[in-house]
């Protein structure tokens, strides 16, 4: 007697066929459950401003956070050539720093998780400085990158807050560095205010970035500040082991065996947190722009 129940292989083949026939999803390699698929012609899709913690008074916010502003929807308009547009629509998410060397800005998407398995974060992105000069300006953006902000479940033993960070260090102090870095340390947790309810730390401080072994990569920057090309990245992280599994950028796959996230004891109110951040840093007194065409976040559950 033959079974009418499809095999797992058939189910997977059907899933891939459906994904690959969808022009908006076909460019991604999502795991079986798509948690979110963000195309910015349909709005900000939950990518909001990373606001710092405070208590009673905004002056208590750490300066690293105080500089942040809201991400915006952009057609990548350029003074010399008009709107560049995205891959599949006119719009991309734009994360812009202030025009100051070392300035940063972060957009964040806040979820919680329901299953401790692999999470895949796929992004099509590009970056440029503000085109205030008629030259290549290839060392004006210090870095662009992403982070997760995770915490174990409230019933887990030895609960931790875990924050994997990766940045593409494009330039530092005018040197065109072009390599991927990670971070395993943050600044000291400090109480904000006097109620003992709110703490803050600055995990994007300039210190403590470490080179990802074999992480040098030359991306497509193009020839003037107003030409852009979209770049693909994919990062897999295991929520069960709280460990990075793989990282790809365009044609390169990187060895993640030396990668470590920031780890700290679990905090009081963050159980099952599943946050995603995207950030930009300036290396000169020009605004640095991180543009994001689309994001697909998926899970193996």
């Amino acid at each position: 007697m033959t079974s009418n129940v499809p095999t797992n292989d058939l189910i997977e083949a059907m899933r891939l066929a459906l994904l690959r026939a969808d022009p908006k999803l076909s460019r991604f390699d999502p795991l079986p459950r798509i948690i979110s698929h963000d195309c910015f012609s349909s709005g900000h899709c939950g990518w909001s401003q990373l606001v710092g913690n405070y208590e009673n008074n905004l002056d208590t916010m750490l300066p690293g956070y105080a500089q942040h502003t809201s991400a915006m929807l952009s057609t990548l308009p350029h003074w010399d050539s008009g709107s560049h547009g995205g891959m599949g629509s006119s719009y991309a998410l734009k994360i812009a720093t202030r025009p100051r060397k070392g300035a940063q800005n972060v957009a964040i998407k806040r979820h919680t998780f329901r299953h401790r398995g692999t999470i895949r974060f796929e992004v099509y992105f590009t970056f440029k400085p503000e085109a205030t000069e008629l030259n290549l300006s290839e060392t004006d953006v210090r870095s662009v990158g992403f982070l997760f902000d995770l915490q174990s479940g409230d019933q887990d033993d030895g609960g931790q807050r875990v924050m994997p960070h990766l940045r593409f260090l494009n330039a530092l102090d005018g040197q065109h560095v072009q390599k991927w870095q990670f971070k395993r340390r943050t600044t000291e947790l400090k109480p904000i205010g006097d109620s003992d309810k709110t703490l803050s730390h600055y995990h994007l401080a300039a210190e403590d970035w470490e080179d990802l072994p074999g992480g040098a990569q030359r991306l497509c920057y193009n020839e003037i500040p107003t030409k852009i090309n979209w770049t693909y990245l994919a990062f897999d992280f295991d929520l069960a082991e709280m460990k990075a599994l793989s990282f790809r950028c365009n044609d390169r796959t990187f060895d993640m065996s030396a990668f470590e996230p920031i780890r700290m004891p679990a905090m009081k109110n963050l159980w099952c947190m599943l946050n995603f951040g995207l950030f930009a840093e300036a290396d000169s007194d020009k605004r640095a722009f991180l543009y994001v065409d689309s994001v697909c976040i998926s899970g193996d559950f």
Partner: protein
Amino acid sequence: MLPENITLVVGRNECWSGRAATEPFEAGWAREAVIFVRALKEPKGEQPMARVEISPDGMRWVAEGTEFRMPSHEDGIAVLRVKHFGNWLRVAADYPPGAECTVLVTVHLKA
């Protein structure tokens, strides 16, 4: 599908003095913008008129024509509305010596 709308915080707890302006923001998808400027602290000195500025490129700025008086007391709120702005927007104000205001600037955009 409901029309897109969004609230952006473009200046938070920033002390304006001298030649002050928000960071530029792109709003080309929106048909209207309402901008609120709230004084988070008691302003000092004479409060100037602030103005909406538009731009062809986000770098060169032109007065759009809408002006408003900056709030004169803590928690005072100034409001302005703009409909024809192309893509780029910002709010700017020129303060006389010794005057300042700590502001929260929010932009409410609607498609």
